Structure formats: C-alpha cells, structure tokens
C-alpha cells in the first residue's frame, strides 16, 4: 500500500512521530493493530519493520506511527520528510478488544507503548471509562501525554528519575492507583516486556484481566512465515504474534508468566 508522509515530528531524543496518508483508504483499523513498513528499496534492510498504529482516523484516511530509533531501519525511517513515499502493508493483527463490559479500563504504557492508546483516545472508544497510566525513565520520554489530556482522558505518569509525576516504575504507580481508587475491571498494556511481565503479576494478584500487546521479530506480519511465535501458557504449542496477536490475554502467553 502506497502512503505519503504528511509530517515527521521529533518527540524526544531518539523518538519521532510519522503522520501518514494512505493513497487509498485503509478499511477498518482497530486500535492495537500494526502495519509492516518497508524501509527503503534495497536488500539492506531486507525485511519490513512491524510498527503499531498510533493515532488513526476511522475512515482509514490517515494514521500515525510513534517510533523509537533502535537500529538501521528505524534510523532510516527517522529521515523521512513530508512528501516522501512509504510502502506499508496492513493493518494486521487483532488489536485491543473494543467491546468490553466493565466500567474502568486502565491502559498501562511504557515509552512508545503509549502509541496504540492514542487510537483509542482519538476515536473515543471507551469514553470516560478510560484512563492512561504512563511510565518513562525521565520526564522527556513521557511521550504524547497532552494528546490524551487534550481529549479529556485522565493521565497519570511516573518517571524512574522522579522528574515528573510519581517517582518509580509504572507498575508501582498502578499499585498506588489500585490502593487509592480500587482496581480496574480490565487493563491494557503495551511497552517493554519487563514492564509487561511485572504488570502481569500485578494483574494476576488482583485478578484483573490484562490485555497485553506483544512484540516479536517478524518477517511477514500475516501468519505465513511462522517466525514470530511465542509459547502458549501451559501448552506445548505456539501462537503467531502477528495473527493471533499482537494483543493477548496475559494469562495465555508463557513469556508474561515466567
């Protein structure tokens, strides 16, 4: 799918946000889905890079990617300028469940993990049931918080170096919130695997269903290479993250329970 870069915005050192216009509408994007992005046209880098869809318009006329530079591919993407072409496949995967009962939905995110929740916020999917708890190492890396507050969504933040909000890990912030406000009906999470693991044990302890957006190296993004598998909890079988996920109930995947 051919797309055009509308904007490339630096958010913090090593983080940028691409606003993208598909040349044809992308039907039915769900928050938590991802796209496979081709970087350049040569064989280095060879494979597409998976990137979660951040903000998007429901009519599929625009979407954004919040990207952290971690290697050759993301570095090349960071050089894109408005008007450049971008070759994208997707949307792929299942996204966060949009039709949950419960009255209190907390999204717990770390770093670029805030991205999929932008789509939920922008399209007001859960109205005032929704709250964001965002953690980062330092205030500069608390990305896109105003995107949520501008839309009236409560945002509670933590920083490891105490430069903003609660001083500590975002899981501690979750604990604190549970203590003061009671537990949510369901949690969503996206971020570093260590954070999501810690959160999975908090969720387990309090018996809160947790939907986690997982990552793995991917070659195809749509279930055919079988490269992106993770082990099922308590079963000698694998899921493909790209097709069965990337959003899973935390109790179902071994990696969040070890």
């Amino acid at each position, binding site marked *: 799918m051919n797309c055009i870069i509308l904007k490339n915005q630096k958010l913090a050192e090593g983080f940028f946000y691409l606003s993208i216009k598909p040349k044809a509408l992308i039907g039915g994007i769900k928050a938590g889905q991802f796209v496979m992005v*081709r970087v350049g046209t040569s*064989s*280095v*880098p*060879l*494979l*597409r890079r998976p990137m979660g869809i951040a903000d998007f318009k429901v009519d599929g006329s625009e979407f954004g990617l919040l990207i952290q530079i971690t290697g050759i591919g993301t570095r090349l993407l960071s050089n894109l300028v408005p008007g450049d072409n971008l070759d994208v*496949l997707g949307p792929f995967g299942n996204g966060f469940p949009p039709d949950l009962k419960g009255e209190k939905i907390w999204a717990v995110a770390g770093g670029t993990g805030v991205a999929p929740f932008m789509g939920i916020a922008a399209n007001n999917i859960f109205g005032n049931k929704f709250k964001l708890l965002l953690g980062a190492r330092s205030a500069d890396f608390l990305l896109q918080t105003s995107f949520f507050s501008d839309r009236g969504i409560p945002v509670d933040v933590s920083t490891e170096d105490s430069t903003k909000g609660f001083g500590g890990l975002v899981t501690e912030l979750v604990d604190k919130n549970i203590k003061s406000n009671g537990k949510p009906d369901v949690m969503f999470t996206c971020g570093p695997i260590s954070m999501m693991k810690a959160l999975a044990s908090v969720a387990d302890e309090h018996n809160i269903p947790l939907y986690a957006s997982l990552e*793995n*190296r*991917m*070659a*195809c993004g*749509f*279930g*055919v*290479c*079988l*490269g*992106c*598998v*993770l*082990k099922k909890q308590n079963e*000698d*079988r*694998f899921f493909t993250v790209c097709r069965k996920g990337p959003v899973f109930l935390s109790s179902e995947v071994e990696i969040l329970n070890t």
Partner: protein
Amino acid sequence: MNTPNISVNLAGINLRNPIIAASGTFGYGLAFQNFLDLGNIGGFVTKGISLKPRVGNPDPRICETPSGMLNSIGLHNVGLEKFITSKMPEIRKVDTSVIVNFFGETVEEYVELANRLDQVEGIDGLEMNISCPNVNKGGSSFGTDLSVTCNVVNLCRKATKKPLIVKLSPNVGDIVEFAKACEDNGADAISAINTLVGMAIDIKSRKPLLAKRTGGLSGPAIKPIAVRMVNECYRSVKIPIIGIGGIATVQDIIEFTLAGATAIQIGTMNFVDPAICEKLAAELAPLLNELGVDNLHDLIGQVS
C-alpha cells in the same frame, strides 16, 4: 511484436509461467489471496508437511542478516491429516499449480507421505525436502548423505506417480553428486537450493539470535551461490531444475534461467512484497521482448 511465450512444462506440470512461490514462505497459499491473484502465478509450494502435526522450534526463530535472513522455523506444520482435510479443499479451488513439500524423520515416513499424497486430488507435484534431520542417523541431514539420498528418493519414486521433485541442500561439498543421485533414482526434477546453514549472535546477551543456535540463510545474499549450483546441476543432469535462492527481480529470473533453471521459486521476497510473484510474472514477457526472445524456454541454460 509477438507476446513471448513464458509458459513452461516442468516434468509434466504445465506452468503458465515459471514463477512458483517457495515452500515455507507462502503458507498454504490461501493467505496470499489478499495480495495477489493466484491465477496469475505459475504455482506455489506448500509449507513442508509431515505425517503428524509439528509445533516447530522454540523462538526466536528468525533474524535479519545483510541482504538475507536466518530462519529456524523447523518442522512447524499442520500435519498430513489436517492438510488433506482442511487445507486441500480450499487449495483445490485455486487456479494454479500446486506442489506439496513434504519431509519425514525416517525413510519410512517419507515413503508413507509420498504414498498418501499420491492419492490426493488437486496436487500437481510433490517436492521432497531432504534437508531434514534424520533421527536414525543421529540427526544429520538426509540431504547431505549421498547413500541416504539415493535410498529415500528411490523409495519415494516407487510410492508415487505424481511428478517427484527433490529439493537439494546446498550444505554439501559437491551438489552435482546429489543431483545425479536424484536423477538416477527416478526424480522428475530437482529444486536448488534450500537454505545455507548460518548463525548470528547477539553480542549483548551473548546468545545466538536463533534459539536453535543455527538456521537457514535465505534471500538475495545467497543468490550467487544458488546460480552457481543451478548451473553446475544443469551441466550434469538432464532432468529439469527449479532455481531458488534470493530471487527478487525479473532480471534474477532470467539469470537463473540462463544458468539452467526451467522454473524458479521465490522465497524470502514473498515476505517483503507479498504480491511479488504476480508482479514479476507481469514483467517477464516485456523483459523477454526487450531481450529479443520469443520463448523463455529458449534461454534455459544458455549462459555461454
């Protein structure tokens, strides 16, 4: 200007064009219908099928390398039963040539698979993947032991009347010996090449980037090795050769054809561009026109 003929006859399988999607990179074909019309490609090879379903190797299973990738997907597949009952009915609806890739852990398993698949309607050919660990030989690969290769090809040949293609391992000293062994034991065609064994290490964790330590190298990086092996085989056997390894452009297809390939397979590039088989099929006749060639067949092995 005539439209050049790009259809080929591959050991009795009539392909509308020489472009076949390679095993393990095209699933069971069906998922690609979102990206292309299977009626426009020569055919596809299924993911390798075993007697029983297999969960495959632990993860991580893939990583990227310069102009290539490593994979250790392993034996992950739905198994023969489910393949026949739940995949084949869908596959039969598709207007393209269907080649089923299969493998066993023992010679007996290979033979049983050949036997069973022989009976299945809608399969145009069988491709034996012999780059698999042989449990009766301490896990060394079938395809790197000449006498084992002779034996398993010979027995599978007797088990099926369908066109039998043997897919050669490049991890051998002399691929020609293996190509000849396949020809002598009744193979109708050979596929060359499967992946080269490679390894990559994460220097921070000091762990291999693949859980299985090593994996198969594929992609443009291996193209020169594949072209050489196809050409070596072409000069030594008479059965047709399917060229495989790093094909990414229509020029690459001609390169393999000149080296001796009757048809070609595209593997890794299906991930990069899931419509690539169809796109290259559309580019082939125009390129032949440019080269002044009426019939793709006239180019096979014509490197001087």
